[in-house]
């Protein structure tokens, strides 16, 4: 594993022998989203609809490494982010029913198998919510495998579709990560769904001016070199604004053998 990261020769050889996955996306955030507050993540975020599902590799390829990711943003002073997203679960804001998802995956990082946590866990409004400042309490397994810890967030009233709220500022004292969500409760609400995603960040890039492309090459900048698997879902996010916006993204997934 991780041959593509071992040397440039390995990278070129893998590309030449097995090819690469290259995609270009255009996505639109067509509705206004809801700003975060001090009790719901501290930084305003929104999720772009859609994404990309990594195809299943063909042996001997065992996975892919994203060697290049470029994003073009519409608005200055916002930040774009791409991440592998794991659905940790969702809550129906009408019935209060929690539907469990998956735990964060085990991944090989620099030659070692690692039980991962989300680098960020976000609460995404996947169906518009009707609720007055709902208190959402998340029960989770932390970065050390301890169960039963909880994070409590008071969301804004009736957050709009694709609004995103960062869970991590509200973790229990001493916790730094979530491996799994085991339960979610809500104090109010008559409609909507909130889905919780654990993110493994591929690249984050502030956009300096309108229609600028991100200049931050993640490969050599200390970001965890995730090797993804077939079925992994890449999602795109924007921070710092609630307005409608467009994004163009292009990326390359190189085969890992």
């Amino acid at each position, binding site marked *: 594993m991780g041959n593509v990261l071992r040397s440039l020769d390995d990278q070129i050889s893998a590309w030449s022998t097995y090819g690469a996955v290259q995609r270009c996306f255009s996505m639109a955030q067509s509705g206004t989203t809801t700003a975060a507050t001090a009790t719901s993540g501290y930084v305003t975020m929104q999720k772009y609809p859609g994404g990309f599902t990594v195809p299943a590799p063909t042996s001997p390829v065992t996975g892919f490494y994203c060697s290049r990711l470029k994003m073009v943003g519409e608005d200055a002073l916002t*930040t774009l982010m791409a991440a592998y997203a794991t659905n940790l679960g969702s809550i129906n804001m009408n019935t209060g029913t929690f539907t469990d998802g998956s735990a964060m995956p085990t991944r090989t990082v620099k030659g070692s198998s690692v039980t991962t946590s989300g680098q960020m866990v976000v609460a995404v409004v996947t169906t518009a919510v009707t609720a007055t400042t709902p208190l959402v309490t998340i029960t989770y397994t932390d*970065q050390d495998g301890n169960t039963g810890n909880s994070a409590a967030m008071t969301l804004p009233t009736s957050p709009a579709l694709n609004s995103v709220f960062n869970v991590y500022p509200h973790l229990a004292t001493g916790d*730094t*990560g979530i491996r799994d969500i085991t339960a979610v409760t809500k104090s109010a609400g008559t409609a909507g769904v909130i889905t919780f995603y654990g993110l493994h960040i591929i690249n984050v890039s502030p956009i300096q*001016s309108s229609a600028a492309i991100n200049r931050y090459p993640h490969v050599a900048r200390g970001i965890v070199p995730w090797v993804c698997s077939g079925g992994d879902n890449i999602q795109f996010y924007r921070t710092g604004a609630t307005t409608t916006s467009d994004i163009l993204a292009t990326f390359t997934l190189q085969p890992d053998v």
Partner: protein
Amino acid sequence: MGQILSRDLKYQLEAQGKGHSFNILSSTNSGALTGAAAGSGDFTVSIKANSIGTTFPSTIGDILQLPSGTSPLRLQTLLLNLATGSTPYLLAYIYQFGTQVLTATGDQFTHHAATFPVLRTQMGTSQAVPLLPMIQITTATTTTAAVLTMKTAAGGTGYTDQDGNNTVGTLTHTMPNIATAVNSCYFLPLEDGDRGVQNVAAIQTNTAAAAGAATIWGVEPIAFLNATYANGQDGIFDGVFGQLRMPNLRPAVATSGTANAKLVLITLTGTAANLNATGFATAVADT
């Protein structure tokens, strides 16, 4: 003892969630400022804090929401969208020394309840942190440009320098304008040879204004960034591949009591209201 022994281990710790990954930041600025002059520190300083939870001048929200705890968090990467060109930025802790009355002359400094110096473990030992003294106008001044000196009216100690020496200041800080805007910040002058202070003990208001008040902070730089030109370049601090220096994102600790410490962006810029910064930071726990 630290556990970050290699870059590979750093990645693995981060993947496990042992740290603080991708804290997305979005700052707010404090509005139009009064530019500095030669007699007021030369640099026009601006505090930028988190856009949510900040109401200037008194309620300052940390620019990064760190996980609770005291174990070191080593800053790996800080990247900012710097929309104002030719602007140095600091990620810094500011510690409140106290407050200053500007409407009466004499000894008008009231120290914060915490006992300074603030301490940080460096190279295995607890050491006093030298800070840059900074004044933040919290009530705009009127009528007269206030003048300050870091000493008592009777000629006693004004500050403790970086080496722990009690120092009677001789240099004056003169507000750059009779109407100095709220939230304007300036560095206070130190005696020749001094480069920081462990504590500010007294500030004499030599010349009073008709209105005005200030908070006195000590600035501890954590990381330096720079925007070369507007809207065109990220400011990047790379503690892994760039400088092999991963500063601790935890605040220094008061000798006794609890310091009022805030993690902010400090910019050195012109007088106009500054555009805000967005970006992200990553850090890994080192226990």
